[in-house]
């Protein structure tokens, strides 16, 4: 009897769970269709910004849009970053993608062309939602602080995204701990002062016997600080590598410079950069390269680290978790007067070249593309962007928007110098990055050294760079081939004297951009040929 009762309870629990799942699934399906009200349209948009702030901001923007357009309902789909790429590919290939998707993660160029609608026409027209503002009448792209470059794909020569936020990297400080250890809340202004501060913190921790690290590091956070400081040492070197008149930080120039022998891992500037990276890595907790972003953030918010280097996008999350006053500063660069690191540096890096991010694209699967495009326009309006910065605490992307006092420390610092090189040349160079990452422990380990890392990297680096450049060359050929069809079609149409001016203008634009692509292709090919790799 008892056994029958247990079996019945188990079965009842199973039936209950199944019923709950069924109801939830069916109600979700009902809510995503035109639910009951004949004219109600649902527009779904997906993103991976699960940090504190964005979701609430998006909800407010969606509510405001629905207030203006009662027949439209906006549904937000926040997807965890870790699974976003695989989720995205599944949705795109399966034909179930939302109307609007945040661009950038795991999206190949072929997928962008195939599944997303170019927004170039939208970018050239004024945004109706800016009516009554100083931006009224301006083409959409001119209302962004970066000219909508963050949504522009230079390889496809089209705008594909609407970027709604800026971002910057900063050092965050626990001011309470800082004051307790140093007696003041003065933030370091140079890397020399930063290193001195780290030593002071380490001595304090050893003396007091407390588990305290100067800088909380992780696989995610550490590169922000380390790459910036490496770049400070290679600014002068970067100037010599770029072709005359062209300063674009192109990794191809860096890579081909290596193969041509214009720099190597033992160059003074590079060695200096690696030494500075090692110094700052030693100020982080042991084994930081194996831990994740959240673990480093936990270390900081739990008063076990005095500093953390991360993006402005983490500021809101950090503020909501801490119980101490927060200090923020740009990454302190070496002063040109620094006796050790001064000779190779020009000065603090300018953030003027940083583009807007959080770019949303319109998928070809949208059942209501006009409405989805209209929502994108609203998202890019001054009104929505003001809401965005006020609620999320993130940097706005639309001109004349007023960032709040908490956002101000994160606004880009325009004065400064060009960036130097990246230690692994480019994150898009798979083989070079892999070699660098797998040798990284030699740089930061207590018993490692710069020499040990260079010795390990040196032999395999040229071959890795060659393979990455070859891959780059093939990619650029495909892009050129893809653009040829469009160019040929437009050239054919434009030969008619009665062709609309817009077609001719577009042809001119595409020809200009195509010449840029060709220049990059031939640079890559030339670099490979100079390095002894014949091109077919």
């Amino acid at each position, binding site marked *: 009897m008892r056994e029958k009762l247990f079996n019945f309870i188990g079965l009842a629990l199973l039936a209950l769970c199944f019923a709950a799942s069924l109801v939830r699934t069916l109600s979700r399906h009902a809510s995503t269709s035109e639910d009951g009200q004949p004219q109600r349209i649902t527009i779904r948009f997906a993103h991976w910004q699960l940090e504190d702030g964005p979701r609430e901001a998006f909800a407010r923007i969606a509510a405001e849009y629905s207030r203006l357009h009662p027949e439209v309902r906006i549904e937000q789909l926040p997807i965890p970053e870790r699974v976003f*790429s695989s989720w995205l590919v599944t949705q795109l290939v399966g034909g179930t993608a939302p109307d609007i998707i945040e661009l950038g993660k*795991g999206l*190949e*160029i*072929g*997928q962008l062309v*195939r599944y997303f609608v170019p927004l170039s026409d939208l970018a050239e027209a004024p945004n109706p939602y800016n009516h009554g503002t100083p931006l009224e009448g301006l083409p959409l792209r001119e209302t962004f602080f970066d000219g909508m470059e963050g949504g522009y794909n230079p390889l496809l020569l089209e705008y594909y995204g609407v970027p709604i936020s800026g971002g910057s990297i900063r050092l965050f400080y626990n001011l309470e701990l800082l004051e307790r250890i140093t007696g003041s809340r003065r933030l370091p202004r140079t890397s020399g002062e930063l290193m001195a501060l780290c030593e002071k913190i380490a001595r304090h921790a050893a003396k007091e016997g407390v*588990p305290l*690290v100067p800088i909380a590091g992780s*696989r995610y956070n550490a590169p922000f600080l380390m790459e910036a400081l490496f770049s400070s040492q290679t600014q002068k070197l970067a100037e010599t590598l770029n072709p005359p008149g062209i300063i674009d930080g192109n990794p191809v120039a860096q890579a081909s410079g290596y193969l041509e022998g214009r720099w190597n891992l033992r160059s003074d500037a590079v060695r200096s950069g690696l030494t500075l990276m090692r110094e700052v890595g030693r100020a982080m*907790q*042991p*084994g*930081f*390269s*194996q*831990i*994740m972003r959240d*673990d480093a953030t*936990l*270390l900081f918010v739990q008063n*076990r680290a005095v500093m953390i280097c991360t993006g402005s996008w983490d500021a809101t999350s950090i503020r909501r978790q801490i119980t101490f006053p927060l200090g923020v500063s740009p990454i302190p660069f070496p002063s040109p007067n620094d006796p050790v690191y001064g000779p190779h540096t020009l000065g603090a890096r300018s953030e003027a070249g940083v583009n807007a991010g959080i770019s949303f694209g319109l998928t070809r699967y949208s059942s209501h593309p006009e409405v989805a495009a209209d929502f994108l326009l609203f998202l890019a309006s001054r009104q929505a962007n003001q809401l965005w910065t006020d609620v999320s605490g993130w940097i706005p992307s639309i001109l004349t928007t007023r960032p709040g006092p908490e956002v101000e420390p994160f606004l880009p610092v325009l004065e400064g110098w060009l960036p130097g090189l990246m230690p692994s040349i480019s994150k898009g160079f*798979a*083989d070079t*990055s*892999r070699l660098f*990452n*797998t*040798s*990284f*422990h030699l740089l930061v*380990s*207590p*018993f490692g050294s710069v020499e040990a890392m260079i010795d390990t990297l040196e032999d395999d680096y040229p071959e890795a760079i060659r393979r990455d450049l070859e*891959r780059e060359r*093939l*990619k650029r050929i*495909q892009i050129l*081939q893809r653009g040829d069809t469009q160019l040929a079609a437009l050239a054919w149409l434009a030969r008619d004297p009665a062709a609309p001016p817009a077609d001719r203008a577009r042809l001119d634009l595409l020809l200009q951009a195509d010449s840029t692509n060709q220049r990059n292709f031939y640079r890559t090919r030339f670099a490979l040929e100079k390095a002894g790799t014949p091109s077919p």
Partner: protein
Amino acid sequence: MAAPISPRKAWHEWNLYLFILPAVLLIGLFCYFPAASAIYHSFFRWSGGEEKEFIGLKNFYDVLGDGVFWNSFWVIGILVVSNLFKLAPAILIAVLIHRLKSERWQYLYRIVVVLPMIVPGLVTLFIWKSFFDPTQGALNRFLDLTGLKTALVALDRAVGWGVFHEGIPIAWLGEPSLVIPSLILWGFPWIGAVGVLIYLAGLQSIGSEVYEAAQLDGAGPWQTFFHIEFPLIMTQVRLSLVMLIISTLQGFGLQFLLLGQDGGPGGRGMVPGLWMFNRAFLAGEFGYACALGLFLFAFILGLTWVNNRYVRVEKT
């Protein structure tokens, strides 16, 4: 076993085969089609999009010269051997549960062993990742509290490993020499629910008269295990072995989550599956990754053939 029927009779009953047609179609679509696509694309330079370029056997020649791929088999070899030893705790627990006199306690212990299966594997991986954390992880705290860290440091000094140092937290996933030991240590105490249940099923099929005869002959507990129980569950052990080898050879989720896409410091944790992932999704060389997959398939096929031919089970 059913007696064979003539082809004529089989054709006569052709409409019965329609019942298995949906299953065959689904298996064809979801199992065989991706494999066939991989074989097809291995002859192309393909970045996963629409464009592809036929390059014949170039991908296969490149695989033959790929040092990272072939080195990854060393890692797999170590993991396979260590996994062989990891079979032992599950067998031991199954035997202990089987020998309990009370059926009620047998049932309770089975539940205790099976209950952790509720936790998704990914969650277990993340929990272990937190165990390995140098500053906040449970493993380092345990070693510090029990004094084992001091013993390890002393041993290190004597042997000259250069891995364990006084005052420096152990970076289990950040120190190249500790990557493989960490991968082996993962999952301790290695009592997999599925394994225990499989062995229990095997043990329960052993008749009680066999135990009685052994008892009469004066066999002790260890003798009973080595001469009766273990030989009689060899079919289940062999099945576990095949599944274990295949999953170890193909798998890379553990290494990816614990060490990242590059296989950790020094690439010490790089396994064939992870290298395929790296080439496909990081380098954008999907065609090359398919060729790697074919080599891996051939390797697994060879091992399975060896296992079937030489690991025989003598039924007494």
